C-alpha cells in the first residue's frame, strides 16, 4: 500500500527521473522506503550491513520518479534521491495499485 498523492496537473508535467543513493551502513532495515516507494523502485537486500540489518537496493533501475518519498520517510538519513534527466509520464507509472488515497 503506498502513501502518495497524484499531482493535480499530471497531464502537464514531465515525469522526473531520480537517481537513488543509499548509505547502506546507516540503514537499519525498517523497510519504510521499500514499502512506500510509489514506483516499487526498491527492494531489501538479503545481505546484512555491519550493524546486522538488511538494507534497500535498487530493483527497477530508471523507474524512480524523484518523488523523494523514500528520502523523507527514512528515519536514518540513509537514502536520498537526486534529480536525473526528465522524461514524459507513462500513465501506469503514475497510478499503481489504484490509490490516490491519502490518509
Amino acid at each position, binding site marked *: 500500500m503506498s*502513501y502518495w498523492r497524484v499531482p493535480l496537473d499530471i497531464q502537464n508535467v514531465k515525469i522526473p527521473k531520480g537517481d537513488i*543513493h543509499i*548509505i547502506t551502513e546507516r540503514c537499519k532495515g*525498517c*523497510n519504510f522506503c521499500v514499502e512506500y516507494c510509489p514506483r516499487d523502485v526498491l527492494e531489501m537486500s538479503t545481505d546484512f550491513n555491519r550493524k546486522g540489518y538488511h538494507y534497500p537496493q535498487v530493483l527497477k533501475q530508471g523507474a524512480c520518479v524523484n518523488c523523494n518519498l523514500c528520502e523523507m520517510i527514512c528515519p*536514518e*538519513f*540513509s537514502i*536520498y534521491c537526486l534529480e536525473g534527466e526528465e522524461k514524459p509520464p507513462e500513465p501506469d507509472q503514475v497510478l499503481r495499485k489504484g490509490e490516490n488515497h491519502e*490518509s
Partner: protein
Amino acid sequence: MSEPTTDYTDTLTIPEPKENLKHPLESYIRSERFPHIWCSSCGIGTIVTAYISGLQKSGLDPEKVAVVSGIGCSGRAAGYLRLDSFHSTHGRALPFATGLALGNPELKVSVISGDGDIAAIGGNHFIHSARRNIDLNIICINNFNYAMTGGQAGPTTPLEANASTTPYGCYEYPFNLPFLAESSGAVYVARWTALHIRRLTNAISEALQKPGFSFIEIISPCPTLYARRNRLGTGLDTMKFYHDSATIQHGADTREVDIEYQKKIIVGKFVDKDKPTFTEARDTFLNKKLGDQYVPYRRPNNGH
C-alpha cells in the same frame, strides 16, 4: 590484569561504501554522531527529517532557530540537529526554551520532545507556556509510552494498552492533548502521524512561521516497546495501521479527538488563531504604561 594482546594473523576489511555519499540534509544533522540511538523502524528519525524539511520550507534562517529537547528517545532529537540545540532535563524543555526565547527575541525556538516529557512531568510548563502564549513551537512525539526508560505507561497510553507498568493493561484515562493545548491557550494545534510526512512538513513550516505557542502532536511508532508489548508488529506494521486508521479532519472540535486503543486517529489542523504573544503583549502594555521610560530588552552584544 594483563595488557591487551595485539598479535593478529590477518586483517580482513569490510568493504566501505564506494561512493562518497552526502545526504541532501547532511548540513542540518550532526552525522558525526551517527548512528543515532533510535531503534530500527522507530518513527522519530522520520519526524526529524520532517522537521528539517519544514524548517527549510519555512524560509527561516537556521542560525535563528534553536531546538530544545527534554529527556527521552524523542528528546534525543536536539542532539542530532545541527542547529543551536539543547538537551535539558526531563520535563523542563519548555521553561528552558522560554528562557532562550525571551533571552533572544530574534530566535524561533522549537521544542521537540516526547509525550511523557511534555505531558507527564512537563505538563505544568506545557499549560503555562501555552497560557502565556510564549513564542514557542512544540513538536510532541507521541508514541503512547515512556520509551527511553523501557516502555512504561504514560498520560497518553490508551486504556487497555499494555505497558511495563500496566502489565494487565492500562486503566488510566489518557489525555486528549489537542484539547488540553487549546484549553490552555495554544494558538495553533495540529495532530499528524509519522506517516503523514508531507502534511507534517507543511504543518511544521506553518507552525514555525506562526507567532506564539504552536503545538503539533505527532503519533509515532515505537516498535521496540509499545508495539512489541502489545503485539502490534514492526514499525512498518504501525505505519500501516496509521494509514488505515487516520482520518484527516481539519478544524475538528478538539473535544472529539480522543485516541482510543487501536481505533481511529483524527488528524489535521484543529486550531489556528491569532493572539499577541507574551512578548508582544508585554511590549504593547509597557509601552502604553511607561511610554518613553520603557526600555525594551536588548540581547547583550559580545562586547558586553
